């Protein structure tokens, strides 16, 4: 199905949902001009569904809005998701952050975002959303990629010193604007540990030490939870390769816990929420 047909069907579905009063708000994408990044919009009137767009500029993972107070206040929501965004919904549900029954999910068949395609799209195996209430469009599903990400494999072949130097260079640019945290659908803590100041646990300063502390905490807190939507990487104004950092932990989860991948399976107990006597501890040294 052509992209403009998908867009039209999506608008119709949203129009219907609002008109029938099934939902109060559609969390979707709007755009000022073709080819520019689409941005989140919150549509509350059926006639405004004309403002919704679907195209390869729909980067945002809109799941980040579901846990926000100001958005919850708008009432029952329908949300537009790509397959990768939908994985975040799975984790949010596993972690009891959203009630899936009170949410209407419109999944869109996705052939990749960005031009050229974003790095995550090259190894995507969720082009068709899997748990949506309604899915629009049809694209052939690609096969599950084998082995770890090539960028990660190449990186892990480097020596420890080379890897440290790389991260020193990358993280030195961090200005602690926390865009990485705010765009992340799974960074939903009411109060982030870096904002705790009675007493301060993590250096708030944007020094190399403080930046390492922040990014280490962030990525560890997302271990086995990060779904790889890469929004943090896209959001970073300093162009830090956060994707590579996230992949490292995702790979550790996959390798050590029977191929576990966050957000892929609704039925399994989440990695961080489970304990088994057979859990390996050899990687904690």
């Amino acid at each position, binding site marked *: 199905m052509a992209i403009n047909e998908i867009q039209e069907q999506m608008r119709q579905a949203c129009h219907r949902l609002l008109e029938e009063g099934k939902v109060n708000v559609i969390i979707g994408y709007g755009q000022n001009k073709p080819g520019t990044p689409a*941005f989140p919009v919150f549509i509350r009137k059926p006639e405004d569904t004309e403002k919704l767009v679907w195209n390869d500029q729909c980067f945002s993972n809109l799941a980040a809005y579901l846990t926000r107070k100001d958005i919850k206040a708008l009432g029952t929501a329908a949300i537009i998701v790509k397959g990768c965004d939908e994985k975040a919904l799975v984790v949010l549900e596993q972690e009891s952050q959203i009630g899936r029954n009170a949410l209407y999910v419109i999944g869109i068949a996705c052939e990749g975002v960005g031009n050229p395609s974003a790095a995550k799209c090259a190894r995507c195996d969720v082009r068709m959303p899997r748990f949506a209430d309604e899915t629009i469009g049809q694209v052939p599903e690609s096969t599950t990629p084998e082995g770890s990400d090539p960028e990660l494999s190449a990186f892990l072949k480097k020596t420890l010193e080379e890897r440290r130097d790389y991260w020193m260079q990358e993280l030195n640019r961090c200005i602690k604007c926390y865009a990485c945290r705010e765009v992340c659908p799974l960074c939903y803590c009411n109060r982030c540990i870096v904002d705790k100041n009675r007493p301060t646990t993590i250096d708030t300063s944007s020094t190399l030490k403080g930046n390492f502390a922040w990014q280490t905490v962030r990525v560890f807190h997302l271990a086995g939870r990060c779904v790889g939507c890469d929004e943090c990487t896209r959001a970073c104004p300093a162009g830090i390769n956060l994707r590579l950092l996230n992949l490292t932990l995702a790979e550790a989860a996959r390798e050590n816990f029977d191929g576990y991948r966050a957000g892929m399976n609704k039925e399994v107990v989440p990695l961080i929420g489970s304990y088994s006597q057979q859990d390996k501890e050899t990687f904690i040294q």
Partner: protein
Amino acid sequence: MSEVILKETLLQLVNAWIAGGKVVSGPAFVKEGVCLYTDLRNAEHLAMDGFIRPGDSIKKYFFPRHEKIYHYARTGQKLELTNAELTPQERIIVGARPCDAALLPVLDKVFNWDYVDDFYTLRRKATTIVTIACTQWDDQCFCTSVDLSPAAEKGSDVLLLPMENGYEVRCLTDQGRALFAGKTTVSENAALSPEGPERKFTEEEIAAFLREGYENPVWRDIALRCLGCCACAFTCPTCHCFDIVDEGNAQGGSRAKNWDCCQFNMFTMHASGHNPRANQAQRQRQRIQHKFRIYPEKFGETLCTGCGNCTRNCPVSLGVLNTLEAIRACGTTANTVENTGGLKE
């Protein structure tokens, strides 16, 4: 008649400054697609094209993201305080954009107001700004709406205007003249004045809305998609709020000044747990109020240079320009009846 310099000569000059022990900073690609102000290794390191403007601003050279103010050390009952050493390096910023250079006269006001901030002013004195006028702009640029232009001289020591094979050189201060003395030639030709982006609004109409539309519900609509990060403020040339923190332990450590930002929930959080700006609508309103009403009323300067970094760096493409456009589009300056409770919860 104008003074001109060949591009090649300018680059040789950059190398000579570096060889002479000066720190020279300018736009450089830190990786593909990411251009930031960087300390240059040599003239080749300087990015001359392939970008509209760097993704950050030169404010970091005057007001760094982290700065130690003093150190403390305790031995037994004795507490010793030592001021942080401040000997700013002489720096030349080359290839600054006019919308960056313009931040200096604006921030001079606040950093020399009821207290003279030595950290800022000493660095300011040790820095020379060589600006290159813009020949390109994008949809996010709006310098012409805040009384600047692609060739604005404000804040620069030297303004270079691109022309064929080189630049027209306009030395604006003695500091600037010293850098280019004997390096330029006289030419019959002068650079063309670039027009710049179309004017999008007037500061007067925005100020009028801000005075009257304090409780306008449009702030709620504007702020809905704001995620509350500070990519806008930290890459903004003029945003200058900071936090004071202590880092160390009971024996010793330091007190430091760190960038802070009004879009963070924590920015106005009181120790009691009460937050006077409890939602993002109030925080967005504050940012725009500060830039277009509070600062102009207090210091006679708009706290915005129209660089567009806020929009370009925002993960959801929300910035000063589209906020002001939303304000203009809402068509009413009055507070509506349905919103008598204002933006409070």
